[in-house]
C-alpha cells in the first residue's frame, strides 16, 4: 500500500530473479535503482524484467532496503531516523561475506547509489588497520603477484610493506 500522499495509482514493476522468483514492487521503490529508472523512462518496464545476476535471496534484501528508504523519504520529518539507522547497521553482517559480496554486485548492477555507498564503506571499514596479507586472509583472496611483480610493489610502497 502506498504511504505517500499522492492519489495516483502506482505502477507496479515486476522483477524476476535469476532463480525464477517473481517480485512485484511499486514504481517509487523501483526508482531507487537507476537501471530500473532508465528502463521505466524508456518504457521497457511493462513486462517482467529478468535479473540474471541476482538471486531471490539477494533481491529480497535489496528490495527491503529500497522500501525502507523510500518510506523514510516519503514520511519526511515524521520518519524514525534511529530506526532507519539501526536497519542500515544490521543490514551488513561482516561475517557473511558471501551475502555482502553478492549484495554489492546486485547494488552495482541495479545502480542503487546509496546502497553501494553504504556497502563499500562497510567493506572499507573491514579493511582498515590490516596489512595486505591480513586482507587476503579475511577475504580469501589469492596473491596473484609473480615474484618480480611483488618486488616491484615492495619497492614502490616499500615503507608500508609488511615484512
Amino acid at each position, binding site marked *: 500500500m502506498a504511504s505517500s500522499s499522492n492519489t495516483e495509482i502506482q505502477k507496479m514493476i515486476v522483477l524476476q530473479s535469476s532463480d525464477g522468483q517473481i517480485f512485484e514492487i511499486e514504481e517509487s521503490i523501483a526508482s531507487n535503482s537507476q537501471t530500473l529508472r532508465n528502463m521505466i523512462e524508456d518504457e521497457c518496464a511493462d513486462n517482467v524484467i529478468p535479473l540474471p545476476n541476482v538471486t531471490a535471496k539477494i533481491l529480497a534484501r535489496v528490495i527491503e532496503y529500497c522500501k525502507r528508504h523510500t518510506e523514510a523519504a516519503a514520511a519526511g520529518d515524521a520518519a524514525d531516523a534511529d530506526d532507519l539507522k539501526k536497519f542500515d547497521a544490521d543490514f551488513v553482517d561482516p561475517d557473511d*561475506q*558471501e551475502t*555482502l*559480496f*553478492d549484495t*554489492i*554486485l546486485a547494488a*552495482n548492477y541495479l545502480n542503487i547509489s546509496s546502497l*553501494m*555507498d553504504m556497502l*563499500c*564503506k562497510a*567493506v*572499507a*571499514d573491514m*579493511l*582498515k*588497520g*590490516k*596489512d*595486505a596479507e*591480513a*586482507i*587476503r586472509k579475511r*577475504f*580469501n*583472496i*589469492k*596473491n*596473484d*603477484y609473480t615474484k618480480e*611483480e611483488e618486488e616491484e*610493489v615492495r619497492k*614502490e*610502497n*616499500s*615503507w*608500508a*610493506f*609488511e615484512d
Partner: protein
Amino acid sequence: MADWSQLPYDLIHEVASHLVAIEDFHAFSAVCCDWRSVYSTKEWHQRPQVPLLMIFVPEKNGFRNFISLYRNKVYKLEIPAVRGRKTWGSCSGWILTLGLDLTIQLLNPLTRVCLSLPPQSSLQLRPNDARTPYCYRVIKRVFVFMKQQPPPRNDEGDSFVVIIYGPLYQLAVYRPGYTSWTIVKETATLNQFIGVAFRKDRIFALCKAGSLSVFDIDSLAAIDFDDPTPPENVKFALRKGKFNHLMLVESRGDILIVCKQQDSNRCGFPVGPVHFFVYTLDFINKQWVEVRDLGNRAIFVDKSGCVVVCGPERFNCRSNSVYFVADDMKRWLVGEVWIDLCVYNLADRVSEALGFSSEIPNDVLLPLWIVPTLE
C-alpha cells in the same frame, strides 16, 4: 565462495575511496593485481594525514625508523639520500638536506623523491658564514608549504620552501623554477625570524621581538599589518630566549601560535611538567586569543615546528591534544635515559607517555614528524 579479487573496477575504486589513512591504501593496493589498479591510476583522493615520527638510528647511518600512531607499529627504512648530509624537518612530507659540498636537496623520506634546490652559496652570505664550520649552521629552520589548500594533485609545482637562515635569521624562498634562493628584503626594522606560516597567498613570520610580519607570496613585498601584542606566555618564552618553544602554524584558515612551557633548572635543562598553550589570531580585532579547546584537531610538535591535523580520531589519535617528544630529566640524573612520545590533553592539562621509549634512542638528534604522501 565469493571471489573478492573479481570485484568490478568501479567498486574497487569505490571501496578504496572510503579509506582514509595512506597505510590502509598501500595495504589495499598490495593485495592482488586487480586491486592494485587503484594505486596505478592514482585516482585516490588523498586527505591530510597524521604524521609518522621519524627517529634517527644511531648505529646505522642512512637508516631511519618511523613510528606510526595509526597502526601502532614501527617501520624500519634505509634512506641512502640522507647519508653524510645534515637534515632539517619542515613539518610536512619533506626534509631538507645539506651535503658537505653545501648542495641542498628536498627529500621525501618515505617515497624517496629527491629534488635539487639551489645551493647554499646562492644565499649571498658574508664570507665568515661561508667558512667551515659556520657554513653548516647557516640554515636555522625550514618550512614547506602548498600554495593551494587542498592541493589539486600532489604536484611539486604547488609547493614552495621558506627557510630562516644566517646570523640575522632572515627569510629566503624557493619556488619551482628558481635557480637561486630569493631573499625576502625586510624593509622595516631588522627582524630576526623564528617561525613562518602560510595563509591565503601570504607568508606570516613571527620574530624574536614577538611581532608578526606579513609578506605577499608572489612579490615578497611586506604588507602593512596591525601587529597584535603577543600573549603573556609567548612574551615570557621570548624573553627567556626559548625560541624553539614557539611555533607559528596555519590550520583551516587560522593562524595559530603554539607555545610550549616547561621550567628549566639552573643548568638550563628542562624539568617538570610540560604545558602547551595555543593562541589564534583574531584578524578583525588584531589580537591573539587563547584557544582552550582545539575541537576536532590534534597538534604534532617537533623541534622544527608543528603539524595540525583535523579529524585525528580516524587515525587512532586524540582530539584536542598535542603530541610531542619528551625526556625525563630525573632519569637522566640517575643515569637512566628515557625519551618517549607523549600526548598532552588541552582539556585537563595532563601529559601521558605513549610507551615508545624503547624505540627512541637517547640521541641528541631529536625526532621529526613526517607527513606521509602518495607522491
